[in-house]
């Protein structure tokens, strides 16, 4: 596992966790971002992000695909808390995996979600790729949520690119996406 705590307690931290690339969204917004280089020598990947969308909604789902595969080769599960209820959701086989829920323009422009996505054994060619996410946003009122998500890409290819797209609207200014590699 590539939980930060595990990394931190394993020693040799500085040499096992490296920054690969970062996108910060400018004033014009962006319909999607793509990490097209995965670096070399890594076993796991981690995406750390803050997100907001330009959609005139309360929330939009961050949709992730690998290797530009837009086919129905993904599933994801979600356990989430809204501040009132805890609920589980399972997607059908679909064209993306949900990895975040980001606030839209309904809420104060300074409110962003925080996201940490772990992509385990990202380059193993014997396994489907499994992802886990911790995501949340709070709006100091009804409307926020905390999400535990798990996704699978039913493909054994090594991951060579990662694309993140909001389900509606664009990524808003100041949203940022940072990709890190973890060595085994």
């Amino acid at each position, binding site marked *: 596992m590539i*939980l*930060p*705590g595990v*990394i*931190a*307690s394993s020693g040799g*931290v*500085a*040499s*096992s*966790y*490296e*920054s*690969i*690339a*970062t996108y910060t969204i400018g004033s014009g917004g962006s319909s999607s971002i793509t990490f097209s*280089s995965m*670096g*070399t020598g*890594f076993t796991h990947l981690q995406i*750390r*992000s*803050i997100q907001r969308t330009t959609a005139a909604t309360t929330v939009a789902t961050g949709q992730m695909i690998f290797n530009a595969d837009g086919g129905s080769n993904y599933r994801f599960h979600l*356990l*989430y*808390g*809204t*501040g*009132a*209820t*805890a609920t589980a959701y399972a997607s059908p086989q679909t064209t993306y995996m949900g990895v975040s829920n980001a606030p839209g323009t309904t809420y*104060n422009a*300074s*409110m*962003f*979600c*925080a*996201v*940490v996505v772990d992509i385990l054994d990202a380059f193993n060619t014997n396994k489907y790729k499994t992802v886990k996410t*911790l*995501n*949340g*946003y*709070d*709006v*100091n*009122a*009804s409307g*926020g*949520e*905390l999400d*535990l998500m798990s996704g699978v890409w039913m493909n054994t290819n090594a991951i060579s690119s990662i694309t993140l797209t909001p389900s509606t609207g664009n990524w808003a200014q*100041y949203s*940022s996406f*940072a990709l*890190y*590699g973890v060595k085994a």
Partner: protein
Amino acid sequence: MAAGATYTPIASFTVSTAQASYTFSSISGIYTDLVLIASVQLSASGQSFLYQYNGDNNTNYSLTILKGNGTSATSDRRSSINYQLAAGWDAGLPSSGSSYATAIININNYSNTTTYKTSICRGSNAAGGDVTSTVCLWRNTVAINSITCYSGASANLAAGTTLALYGITAA
């Protein structure tokens, strides 16, 4: 091309004698994200592990929590409060013996001056009796330069509590 190693230890502290709080101060803005990893026992039962930024004790915080206590999974919310919660909700943290709760707090983009600060945290309090995931909001756009860890009510951080702060730098 990777930009180089990161995940840098900034500071750590082990409580030797029970004390009310500990503050990571003068946090540099050179990193992109902060991760605070805590192993915590408190001096009194029924209390939670909390944190604040920049000495702000006003009601500028809020949180949404997803939690399980062994019987049910539920969610709750607090708005306009003066704390953020990292561990312990339905059940208080351990207050004796060798049991400690743990918390991993991710504070993404902590030093930007354009967004409110959102943190996400996993709290593991099996000995106390619950597991939590929490999102906390600080309604302030200033950079975070200090983090104070403490507990509510009259509980202190007990001896053996460890607090470690790391910085992650994006390319």
